[in-house]
């Protein structure tokens, strides 16, 4: 897909400052992710990479600045609509307990916001193969899965939603080399999707077109 030069950046942070109490995590950060771009956030631990993704989802309040999704400012009135553009994979894949894998994958399709879409078991099964997950895990309870398995289930859950933007937080942290490669290749092949990822893993990070470093205490370059 060719990108229109005039298109608005799907994700845009303007002068974003985030603080917890007196501790400023991100200070005056501006960042625009262009349509179809794959951007990785770099920098040491504690530089607020995950926090930034959470702020873009509207989970963490901004001290100052503005986040725009698809050109619209993120605020209480727009957040519920704007979240529908984003497939978010959180760190450590805390997918919840008390249900089986397939029920977890199906659940989002029961929400009104996704009423136009249907759960596609065939695609889900293909993604299981693609990410080297045994098909029998479909019927396993989530709490019996390993960290790496849960992480891939969370990724598949996000992909199934078929959304144009991906926010990926350390999605290969619990994966072995093979699975990391498989996941990386899949995302590298999504030229239509706009991806903003936190990645420590070198393999995954190399797939990004651009790396944006964040600094400790929010002091931006």
């Amino acid at each position: 897909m060719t990108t229109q030069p005039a298109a608005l950046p799907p994700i845009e942070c303007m002068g974003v400052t985030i603080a917890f109490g007196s501790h400023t995590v991100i200070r005056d950060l501006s960042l625009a992710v262009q349509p179809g771009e794959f951007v990785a956030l770099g920098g040491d631990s504690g530089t607020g990479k995950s926090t930034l993704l959470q702020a873009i989802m509207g989970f963490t309040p901004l001290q100052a600045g503005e986040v725009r999704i698809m050109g619209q400012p993120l605020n209480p009135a727009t957040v519920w609509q704007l979240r529908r553009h984003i497939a978010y994979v959180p760190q450590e894949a805390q997918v919840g307990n008390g249900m089986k894998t397939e029920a977890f994958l199906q659940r989002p399709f029961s929400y009104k916001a996704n009423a136009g879409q249907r759960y596609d078991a065939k695609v889900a099964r293909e993604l299981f193969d693609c990410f080297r997950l045994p098909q029998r895990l479909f019927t396993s309870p989530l709490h019996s899965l390993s960290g790496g398995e849960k992480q891939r289930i969370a990724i598949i859950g996000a992909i199934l939603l078929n959304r144009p933007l991906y926010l990926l937080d350390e999605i290969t942290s619990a994966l072995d080399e093979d699975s990391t490669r498989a996941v990386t290749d899949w995302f590298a092949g999504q030229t239509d999707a706009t991806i903003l990822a936190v990645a420590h893993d070198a393999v995954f990070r190399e797939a990004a077109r651009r790396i944006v470093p964040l600094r400790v205490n929010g002091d931006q370059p």
Partner: protein
Amino acid sequence: MSSALDIGYGALAAGYLLILIPLAIMLYLRVSFLSDTLIALVRMTLQLLFVGFYLQFVFNLNLWWLNFIWLLVMVLVANLNILNNSRLRRRTFLAPMFVAMSAGMGIPLLYMIGVILRLPNLFEAQYFIPLAGMIMGNCLRSNIVGMRSFYGTLKEQRPAFLLTLSQGASLWEALLPHVRRSFEDAIAPAVSGMATIGLVALPGMMTGIIMGGTNPMTAIKYQIAIMIAIFTGQTLSVFLGIVLTLRRSFTPFGVLRSDIFRKES
């Protein structure tokens, strides 16, 4: 109809000797809450004596507004107890909880007095106060479990909750499984209590009425009516307690506020 045998104050004092058995066991095991137990024992005695004197007074006067104030004080004390136990901020939660508990207790109470007992005076002290106390005591226990479970698990499972929001859930869609689970936690003991009553335990109200000299069949009818009233009160107050506190507990972005919890001291 004979009335219950009175207990002399000397005999009651002898009753306290029985407490030496649990105290001895607790001492032997070096249980951590021995001093709490002693304080609880003193509180129980003072509170009940106070209520005894107060009730004598109130029953003699039998003024509807005085009974009504008694009810409000009871709701208030119950609410403070619930919020203390679930470590939630009073300033945020007292008003919605007050509404939840008042409705949860008031509706089955007035129904029982007006429709089942058909008393002309809804605030008749002899019925109003003990029935309110029974319904309230049970609502209190259920709500401690309900509120603790609801806000506790939401705090604990924050990432999984946020994940459902990211998947497109509305606030209510994301909360519904949590509401359901906390409601189940709070109400399940009441359901199993109902299922075994009479077999395993003789309920306090019934024993009280029987010892008071009433025919056991009448006592049973009272017991059935109060069980239904209590169960209605529990479900209503737990449901309203959760639903009415929601509005104050989440940011407009759908995130649980951290300032609703009391700071651990």
